[in-house]
């Protein structure tokens, strides 16, 4: 008994000893590999949820009289000279071609990304870090970006698949050998070469009759990759050259409008003229119409003569209502095109959590105005109807990505912009809209048993 207990201990000690001795022996090799790049402290970087300055009173500590003094000092100083919450007004311009708002100042880009996750880098997946990626590519910096992480993961997966295919092939080889179709010495490659068997790109073998043996795609892939890397290698990479940041931040129309109208920290200009939020809404609404960009190219100024009345179910208005609703409730709202939905809702932000909900916006026409006229009723019914296939597809996509589908119905009021006033009282408009959320989930008896 004692010996049994003793043995594993001894083994463990031995293994520990080897483990300890190994790094010592080839320290130069393994030490730099093991040194992991520390993740940035996202809590610190994204401490501010919105790009505004706030001045909270110092903490009140009852047994510490100095804290009372500090509170009094800050109260007095604030009452004498009120500190501004809008220290920086970020500058941006409207780009009708991309239907987005561009921010080019690097400081603004960082600030908008870090304080509330606004916008997306034009050359990145979401966080604007093209420059980091470029630096890393040239060997200047060692920060791993999320795109590179994804790439690495995909490469790993590809390797895994190749290995699996190889194992399958070996099993087939073994089977063929057993069946006596293959002489034990010949390798399977020879047979493929001879044309007795064809090999699919995934490593499966078929006995051929008519088809030529397929060339494996992995080879062609490798060829392409090597060609690309060769051409890339021809680029003289000057390590110490200053790299110009070619990336800008793209804000969606809704984000820009929220920053502009609600927070007042963004100034959007169109054709080098700053546009007020009261006029901005008309600009954005016009550009969210289908094929609007061709007819409303930037040279057309916002003149009072050719004002198009904003439909109450304008795509921009509906999307903005929902954006405003969830942003006001504290969610970080980001576009969800890649998951086939309108918005993704993040708790705190994409750096902290995966998106919790996928929002799909549906207009609802339950106001009596929409059912007065049979033609209008038919048109609105057509707009709000979706088929079951649509719902199943959407729900399945979200379930695969572990998100919960939220159907958001926006009650569309009767038209409010019939006379086309130049300046729109936005708060009056927003009051007319109502939002209803519905969570849609597949319920299966076996999986929902607690």
């Amino acid at each position, binding site marked *: 008994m004692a010996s049994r207990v003793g043995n594993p201990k001894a083994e463990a000690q031995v293994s520990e000893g080897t483990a300890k001795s190994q790094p010592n022996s080839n320290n130069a090799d393994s030490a730099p590999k093991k040194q992991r790049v520390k993740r940035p402290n996202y809590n610190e970087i994204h401490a501010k949820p919105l790009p505004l300055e706030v001045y909270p009173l110092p903490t009140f500590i009852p047994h510490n009289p100095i804290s009372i003094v500090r509170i009094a000092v800050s109260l007095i100083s604030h009452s004498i000279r009120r500190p501004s919450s809008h220290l920086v007004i970020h500058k941006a311009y409207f780009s009708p071609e991309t239907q987005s708002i561009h921010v080019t100042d690097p400081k603004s880009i960082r600030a908008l990304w870090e304080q509330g996750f606004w916008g997306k880098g034009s050359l990145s997946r979401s966080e604007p870090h093209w420059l980091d990626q470029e630096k890393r590519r040239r060997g200047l910096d060692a920060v791993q970006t999320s795109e590179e992480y994804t790439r690495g993961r995909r490469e790993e997966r590809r390797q895994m698949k190749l290995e699996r295919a190889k194992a399958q092939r070996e099993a087939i080889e073994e089977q063929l050998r057993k069946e006596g179709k293959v002489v034990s010495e010949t390798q399977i490659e020879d047979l493929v070469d001879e044309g007795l068997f064809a090999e699919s790109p995934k490593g499966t073998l078929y006995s051929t009759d008519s088809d030529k043996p397929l060339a494996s795609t992995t080879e062609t892939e490798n060829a392409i990759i090597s060609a690309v890397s060769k051409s890339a290698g021809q680029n003289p990479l000057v390590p110490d050259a200053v790299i110009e940041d070619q990336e800008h931040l793209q804000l969606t129309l809704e984000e820009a409008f929220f920053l502009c109208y609600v927070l007042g920290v963004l100034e959007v200009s169109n054709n080098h003229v700053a546009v007020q939020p009261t006029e901005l809404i008309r600009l954005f609404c016009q550009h969210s119409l289908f094929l609007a960009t061709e007819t409303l190219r930037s040279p057309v100024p916002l003149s009072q003569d050719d004002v198009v009345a904003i439909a109450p179910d304008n795509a921009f208005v509906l999307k903005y209502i929902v954006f405003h609703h969830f942003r006001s409730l504290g969610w970080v709202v980001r576009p969800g095109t*890649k998951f086939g939905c*309108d918005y993704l809702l993040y708790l705190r932000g994409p750096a902290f959590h995966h998106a919790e909900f996928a929002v799909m916006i549906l207009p609802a026409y339950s106001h009596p105005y929409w059912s007065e006229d049979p033609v209008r009723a038919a048109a609105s019914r057509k707009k709000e109807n979706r088929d079951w*296939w*649509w719902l199943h*597809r*959407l*729900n399945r*996509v979200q379930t695969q990505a572990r998100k919960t589908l939220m159907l958001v119905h926006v009650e569309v009021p009767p038209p409010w912009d019939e006379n086309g006033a130049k300046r729109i009282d936005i708060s009056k408009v927003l009051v007319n809209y109502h939002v209803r959320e519905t969570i849609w989930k597949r319920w299966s008896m076996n999986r929902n048993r607690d």
Partner: protein
Amino acid sequence: MAPGFTPVSEPFAISRVAGRYLLFDVDVMMHARRAYNICGVHVGTVPNLSQQNVFLGIPLELQPEEARVLVEQGHAYIVDESEAHRKGFMQMSREERLSFLKAMDEQGMDISRKAVERAEERSGQALRNKGIESKETVVKETAGEGNELFDSKPTGPTATPVSVKKLEPTYVTPTTSYPPLTPSPPDTSFSLPDVPKSYPLFRYLHSRGYFTMPGIRFGCHYSVYPGDTLRFHSHYLATGMDWDEEFELLDVIGGGRLANRVKKAYLIGGEEKSEEQVDTGKGVGGGADVAPVRAFSIEWAGL
């Protein structure tokens, strides 16, 4: 050929019950599947075990598209069952009805006789097991051969004749309506099945030899198989559309993403409207001239 496979004479009947197209005959189902790539969906349960709905059996429900393809190609015809039954039973003559009732009675009698025989055998077995054989075997023997011995031995044991006298036909509920009724001949006046707008795509895929199953769980109209659905995984998730129909690009993203995840490709397709068809306003009607269908498959590139 599978055992018990009897050749099916064409055109075969597709029963229309409450707007659904059903096949009740196993041979016809096999024929449709083998010859015309029509799979359908089994919808039948055992009547007294209807909670068991994992494995379903006959009847086979056909999608309207499947029924229409079969009818258009002349392999099948639609029978409106409620009409056929009403007409068939109303027009049945007295002799036919009586002969059918008589046949049912005979069948019932057969069942009763067999039941009695089984019961006697069982009781005899039980007695034998208890060892009370000596006296009872005589009775048993005579009872067992009662039917034949009855004439020769009029003074036999009393038990047997009594049981024969008491024998009443079991009431049989007929399970099929096609022995009493005769199958109605193909009725060409019956209109083609109503089909959704995705029908042209279905017809196109079917003409290319693909097998299809309903694809509602993947959010598409059809999941398309390159061969028999029992042998292959499906390759495409197909959604049929009108040629000029507007759809959201988000749907394409969603469909492509979904299909990619389950190792398939998302397929959209529709009937290309030629100029004259647009002019004359001729729809998707099943005429001889069929407008070409174009289909596009969408895959996630993952660049």
